């Protein structure tokens, strides 16, 4: 049985349907992420799980029991808020002890468990400090310790890394993965940052306009997005309108207006004549001199229009015959060489028949 199950959950604010008939189930021990742009309903779902908001329709089941009518303080789950919401008048140790005091754990056991929890998040030396004396990363760890100390069935995390700077965020991501593995508590994580979701999660539900667009493991979401929204939202992708000319069970033959034919792998149920989009990740596209890459099935010539150098890789933007801009990512691995082409060069972009995908409208 799933630990948490949402059944046909719906929440409306006036005319706006913030959450539209969402059903999903989360297994015990999972690191589950709700990912989507702001306003997609992910935070509303989190608030309904925590009990701060009530669904207009549908059920929330925890361990098979409907908790829709249970007030937040009686639900065996805790939340880590984006702003941490640490109590400013309590020391770190008292903040962490708060949920234990609320559930009337004895003083001796409270001291023991607070100590243990502070050890886990490497904050034993800050037990007597007050929140205003801590750095952002330390506050974050106190919030995690406070959320985990009473062994909740579920920990909800509302964009907890949003307020940290880039370097610290990457450190906290690794800490978060280790922490979740060590304590074995189920995490439900809300974020709008797709690299964060890909790095942390066992499973991701990509949301848009109140609905779940796709629910899968990070590699599946990235390599086999189920529709244009997911493909576009997760990572960078080249997309062009295309139509299916032929389908032989293994391969699709697509036609792109003004460009010609593309051979692509057949993955979804398709019919000849169907319109949709051909999509390919920039790192799957190779770029070369006009006479290079003759062995690849899909090969187009174009003009280099622009490039973006970010150190480890360079993204080249190539304009094809029909005006489409296609991006190709090239690692700058050759010593002393950071760029291989100049703006205005005639180049070839190419990819094998197994790369890319066809997406339905």
């Amino acid at each position, binding site marked *: 049985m799933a630990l948490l199950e949402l059944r046909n959950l719906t929440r409306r604010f006036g005319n706006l349907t913030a959450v539209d008939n969402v059903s999903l189930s989360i297994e015990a021990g999972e690191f589950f992420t709700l990912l989507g742009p702001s306003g997609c309903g992910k935070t509303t779902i989190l608030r309904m799980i*925590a009990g701060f908001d009530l669904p207009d329709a549908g059920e929330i089941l925890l361990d098979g029991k409907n908790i829709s009518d249970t007030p937040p303080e009686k639900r065996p789950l805790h939340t880590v808020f984006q702003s941490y*919401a640490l*109590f400013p008048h309590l020391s770190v140790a008292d903040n962490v002890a708060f949920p234990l005091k*609320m*559930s009337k754990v004895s003083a001796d056991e409270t001291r023991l468990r607070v100590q243990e929890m502070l050890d886990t998040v490497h904050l034993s030396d800050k037990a007597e400090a007050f929140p205003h004396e801590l750095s952002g990363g330390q506050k974050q760890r106190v919030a995690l310790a*406070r959320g985990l100390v*009473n062994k909740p069935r579920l920990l909800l995390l509302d964009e907890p890394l949003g307020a940290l700077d880039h370097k610290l965020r990457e450190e906290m991501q690794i800490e978060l993965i280790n922490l979740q593995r060590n304590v074995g508590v189920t995490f439900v994580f809300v974020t709008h940052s797709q690299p964060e979701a890909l790095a942390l999660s066992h499973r991701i539900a990509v949301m848009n306009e109140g609905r779940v667009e796709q629910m899968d493991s990070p590699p599946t979401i990235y390599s086999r997005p189920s529709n244009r929204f997911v493909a576009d939202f997760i990572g960078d992708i080249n997309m062009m309108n295309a139509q299916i000319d032929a389908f032989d069970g293994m391969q699709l033959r697509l036609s792109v207006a003004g460009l010609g034919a593309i051979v692509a792998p057949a993955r979804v149920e398709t019919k000849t004549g169907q319109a949709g989009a051909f999509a390919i990740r920039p790192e799957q596209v190779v770029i070369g001199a006009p006479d290079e890459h003759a062995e690849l099935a899909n090969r187009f010539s174009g003009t280099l229009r622009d490039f973006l150098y970010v150190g480890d890789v360079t993204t080249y933007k190539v304009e094809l015959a029909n005006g489409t801009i296609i991006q190709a990512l090239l690692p700058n691995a050759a010593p002393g060489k950071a760029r291989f082409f100049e703006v205005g060069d005639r180049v070839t972009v190419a990819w094998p028949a197994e790369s890319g995908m066809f997406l339905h409208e």
Partner: protein
Amino acid sequence: MNKEKLTRWLVSGPPFLFMVVFFVLPALIMVVASFRFPGEHGGLAPMFENSSWQFTLETYQFFFSDFIYTEIFLKSFLIAGLTTVICIAMAYPVALLITRVPKRFRDVMILLVVLPFASNFLIRVYAWMIILGPQSAFSVAINSVVTAFGFEPVPLLFSPFAVIVGMVYVHLPFMVLPLYTNLEKHDPILLDAAQDLGANAWRRFWKVTWPLSLPGVYAGSALVFIPVLGMFAVPDILGGTGDILIGNLIKEQFLGTRDWPFGSTLSIMLTLAVLAIAALAMRFSRKSLSYA
């Protein structure tokens, strides 16, 4: 002197001078007066007479020789403390309510809190004479209940009860305003966090709202407690003959018996007592507010 320094003196000079002339000097004059002899027809006797300085500790001896003065001091502190506690209990829900109503109602509610200041203080206190008088609907209602239980009817006016009612009424806005200013700054997410971590409404108040509001409680208490100690108009108008407080005692020395040295002594004792309490309160509050 550079320009910045000059500006600083020009800005802070006049109020500084004002405080020296009208607060520090009179206070020093009062200290000196407390060691002088009363004049034959009231006021003060000359400081230098019969080729010697005329100073004495008589008034201080007098203060401690008769327990009645200490008793009036203790009673005044009791009344002030009681008034403060009642003000906290009554102002807290009001202040909390103002922070919870939609923003457009807040200003109106604040206005209602300070509206009584628009009319004369004495008139407002006299109004309580009518409200608490023996013929008032309030008195009649109370006494009909009291007599129904077989007791003698109680006079409400000219009693310690009336004094406290008057004191609370006059000082309530001074408690509401600092409390509101404090409560308004609380981050509501903290209450969500407390609820999420298992605190019911009662515990959310006592574990989060109340401790965070203590600076406001202390500020309001100072604004109520200290003025009540020196207040003489309310006990004069609403209290009985036995309900005089320090304020009345001091006023009597200056305007009634015209014993200025003793009046000065009483004032100094009051100031010292208030300072002692303030020092204690500061020590106490610093301990509990170490996060601020």
